[in-house]
């Protein structure tokens, strides 16, 4: 012991401060971590966010309710439709209106496709950061097929679909969508099987993830974790089950939970959630009723383009909704609407003063809460373990920094 102390003095060993990121491949360019290191062990750490802050809330408070939709796309840009729907549902809740049944089914299907793409990206990218580039490429292959589906429906690929309208959706699903979705799911299922073969029992992957970045259920709740990060600790909280919105109460699905709350459990929970999401999608596709896709209320929804160019009343209605100071005006009040985003509870808190602009629009980003606990996850571990831990919590800069 004494010898070690002498050696330490002679070698001038001391704790080292290291800045990891923002230009570090694993930090996505949006995070800086200040690490206090003893050798390779992280003694303490501090996470700095805000590199992707673009004033989402301030911008939306100075736009009309419809103009805010495109900004919600850019929150969690890996599953933008869920943000779209969450925001639209908050405004619909302000109005106190309910969208038609078919619209709810479409929203469920598109949300779940987005959730799958999000989980595929996350699992693929975090495996890639551990060296498994094959897994990443396989998953991107499946994601590509799903993004093509989103492109067919919304017109925008992946990041910027802006598919929702307040009180409905932009368009109905295209012809043959059901068949192509089932085809894409077939590929996704094959990919998942391959990924299970590549990763789940892979010695290197298991060694790098099992027991790394673990957190207990109580701590996770104190840090406000939701989504896969909370469920991996064994708490089966899912907004879709707890407070069903749209038509999730009619769907048959399970909420997978882990036990240890470590990176490996987060990986397994996500893999299982992809399966469950496909299950929901298939049920919804087969049980979808025909009918309108938006509310029939000229004060809330836009007339269809065909009518705008063909009927005078619709043209006037269109102008009225788009003119400054004449847009949709929800009644005075405040609501909080939560949906299950890919990373956890995504909430929108909207205050209306009765005018055409939200007086206050607050987004509860699931990533922000999870990032507040990342210091706790990495402290005491090795520097190299930061990479899988940070990868598995799925930090999305657009959502975390807004």
């Amino acid at each position: 012991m004494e010898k070690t102390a002498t050696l330490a003095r002679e070698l001038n060993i001391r704790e080292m401060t290291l800045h990891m990121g923002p230009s570090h491949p694993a930090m996505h360019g949006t995070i800086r971590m200040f690490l206090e290191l003893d050798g390779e062990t992280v003694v303490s750490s501090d996470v700095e966010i805000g590199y992707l802050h673009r004033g989402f809330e301030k911008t939306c408070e100075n736009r009309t309710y419809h103009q805010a939709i495109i900004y919600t796309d850019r929150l969690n840009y890996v599953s933008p439709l869920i943000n779209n729907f969450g925001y639209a549902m908050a405004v619909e809740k302000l109005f106190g209106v309910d969208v038609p049944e078919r619209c709810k089914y479409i929203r469920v299907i598109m949300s779940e496709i987005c959730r799958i793409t999000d989980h595929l990206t996350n699992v693929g990218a975090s495996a890639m950061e551990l060296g498994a580039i094959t897994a990443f490429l396989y998953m991107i292959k499946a994601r590509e097929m799903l993004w093509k589906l989103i492109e067919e429906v919304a017109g925008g690929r992946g990041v910027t679909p802006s598919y929702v309208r307040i009180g409905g959706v932009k368009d109905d699903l295209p012809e043959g969508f059901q068949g192509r979705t089932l085809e894409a799911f077939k590929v996704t299922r094959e990919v998942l099987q391959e990924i299970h073969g590549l990763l789940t029992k892979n010695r290197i992957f298991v060694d790098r993830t099992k027991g790394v970045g673990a957190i207990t259920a109580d701590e996770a709740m104190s840090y406000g974790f939701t989504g896969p990060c909370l469920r991996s600790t064994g708490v089966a909280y899912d907004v879709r089950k707890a407070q069903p919105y749209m038509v999730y109460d009619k769907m048959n699905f399970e909420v997978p939970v882990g036990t240890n709350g470590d990176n490996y459990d987060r990986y397994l929970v996500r893999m299982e959630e992809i399966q469950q999401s496909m299950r929901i999608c298939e049920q919804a596709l087969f049980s979808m009723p025909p009918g309108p896709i938006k509310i029939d209320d000229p004060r809330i929804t836009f007339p269809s383009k065909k009518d705008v160019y063909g009927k005078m009343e619709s043209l006037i209605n269109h102008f009225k909704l788009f003119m400054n100071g004449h847009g949709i005006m929800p009644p005075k009040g405040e609501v909080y609407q939560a949906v299950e985003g890919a990373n956890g509870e995504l909430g929108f808190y909207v205050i209306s003063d009765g005018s055409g602009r939200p007086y206050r629009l607050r987004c509860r980003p699931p990533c922000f809460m999870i990032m507040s606990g990342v210091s706790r996850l990495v402290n005491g571990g090795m520097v190299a373990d930061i990479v899988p831990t940070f990868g598995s919590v799925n930090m999305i800069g657009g959502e975390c920094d807004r």
Partner: protein
Amino acid sequence: MEESLTLKKLRERFPASIIDTHSFRGDDTAVVKRVDVVDICRFLKESPDLSYNFLMDLTAVDYLQMNNPPKTERFEVVYHLYSIKYNHRVRIKAPLTEADPTIDSLTPLWAVANWLERECWDMFGIRFDGHPDLKRILLYEQFEGHPLRKDYPLTGRQPLIGPKN
């Protein structure tokens, strides 16, 4: 409309500090005096028949330009709590004056309050007493002003900063 159990219990336990309650669109809301926020949250969290174990969200609102109807206090800090056990949400709001936008910190109750309160300070300039490290989180240290206040201009530039030594 009948008041929910949470609001009833709050009224019973803290008759003097509840200013108002309402349930617009099913969202239970209690407006409370700022001095009692920590006590109320502790009660909501620890009482076994409520057990609000999640601090889902913490934010603020600047009512400077609200004229429908105008508010007497400029700021309001808004807490969204959620109880996993009873699957229930409640919103707690605490009005603050412009002259003294200070409120007690919830960091002893929830770890996530640390970052949420930092964001609130960053965006609204609301100070949280008892916060271990109240500094900006999304913006940088040299930033001037608090952008989500309604009197913060939409256009304009902040002074450029050089690299830190």
